[in-house]
């Protein structure tokens, strides 16, 4: 027993010696090659793991970023990030998402942990896509690198419906809401046109103006003027019902629902900020219509 131990120590010692001498280029022991190979293996393994962990963290953050940019609820974003991290073996991951930024932390400090969300749109399809990718990850169908490149692709793809289809949907929805809120069928067409015109204004203004609320204000102003014009020339019947229907496509439906769902899930900061966003949008729409009504 002691002999064996001594022999081992001896081996290790020669190993160290040979390591020391290898810098000079002279090989003195048959063990050197073995030990070097093992050390190399260990080092590359550690390096790979570090890289792996970084890539996992990057993938998580990217998934969260896409979801937040597309308008997902923050609790859902955090949940998805944690699930992806856990699926790849990062069990200690912590994530914190707000509508304007994501924090992501693990035990190892070398991983970058903060991303700013600057532009926010509404794209439910992307949320669904990230969700299905994260499901596949949890089922073990993607390697980290695969998942990362899939998400990178997804971020660049533009899956929005064509503009004419969006306009048509906004117009038809406007007409429909006029009927639902008790309007007469005579007002269906005026509301359809006013709603379509308002939504088109919104799309154009969003490109020129950095402030979204201003675009909404101008769009609802246009809706009010169009509705007033239609009633004035006798094309429309009831001004109120036409305006109500036509402004509906501008209503911040997603922020309202998100605010409620985030508050329910206990995400107070995100819920309140989404709620304020919805409130500001509603105020902008109201102000636009009110401007027209004061001329009556």
């Amino acid at each position, binding site marked *: 027993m002691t002999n064996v131990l001594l022999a081992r120590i001896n081996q290790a010692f020669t190993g160290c010696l040979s390591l020391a001498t290898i810098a000079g280029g002279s090989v003195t022991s048959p063990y050197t090659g073995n030990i070097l190979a093992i050390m190399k293996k260990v080092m590359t393994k550690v390096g790979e793991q570090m890289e792996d962990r970084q890539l996992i963290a990057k993938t998580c953050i990217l998934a969260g970023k896409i979801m937040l940019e597309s308008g997902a609820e923050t609790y859902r974003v955090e949940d998805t990030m944690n699930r992806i991290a856990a699926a790849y073996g990062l069990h200690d991951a912590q994530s914190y998402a707000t509508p304007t930024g994501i924090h992501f932390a693990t035990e190892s400090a070398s991983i970058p942990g903060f991303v700013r969300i600057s532009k926010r749109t509404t794209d439910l399809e992307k949320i669904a896509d990230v969700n299905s990718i994260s499901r596949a990850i949890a089922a073990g169908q993607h390697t980290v690198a695969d998942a990362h490149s899939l998400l990178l692709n997804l971020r660049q793809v533009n899956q929005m419906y064509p503009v004419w289809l969006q306009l048509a949907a906004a117009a038809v929805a406007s007409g*429909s809401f006029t009927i639902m*809120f008790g309007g007469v069928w005579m007002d269906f067409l005026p509301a359809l046109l006013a709603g379509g015109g308002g939504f088109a204004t919104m799309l154009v203004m969003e490109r020129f103006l950095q402030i979204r609320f201003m675009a909404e204000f101008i769009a609802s102003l246009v809706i009010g003027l169009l509705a007033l014009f239609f009633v004035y020339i006798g094309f429309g019947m009831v001004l*109120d019902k036409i305006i*109500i229907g036509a402004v509906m496509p501008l209503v911040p439906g997603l922020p309202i629902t998100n605010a409620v769902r985030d508050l329910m899930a206990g995400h107070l900061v995100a819920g309140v900020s989404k709620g304020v966003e919805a409130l500001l949008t509603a105020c902008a729409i109201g102000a636009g219509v009110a401007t027209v009504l004061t001329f009556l």
Partner: protein
Amino acid sequence: MSTVELAAQMITSFLGAAGFALLFNAPKRTLIPCGLIGMFGWVLYYVLAEHGIDIVPATVLAAILVAVLTQICAKVYKTPIIIFIVGGIIPLVPGGMAYNAMRHFVENDYNIAIEYSVKVMLLSGGIGFGLMFSEIINQIIKRSWK
């Protein structure tokens, strides 16, 4: 309430909800379910309101129905709940009431304006309550199945 009126409400609420889902870029295969959820929620609200039930409880019940249908659809289509809930809840948003409130504020008719504003707040709270209620039921079912 005639059958024709009800049919008109069904068609318009379907178009409105599906149109909204399209504006939010919901996936193609979910557009029709979105429209149907919005339609069922709105028809329940409409029928209850026509039968003289106050609009606040009617909104709560409709929101619960929407939320339950949403949970089912999310399970069937394996997508996040948010996709179906937006289109479904939109018809219940008290847009007309908010408009009336704003209009009376503009006309310096503050008493009536505040009356409408409070109603809007109650209705929004009702929608939130309805969504929460179904979530609670969903959680209870999940717990008891486990």
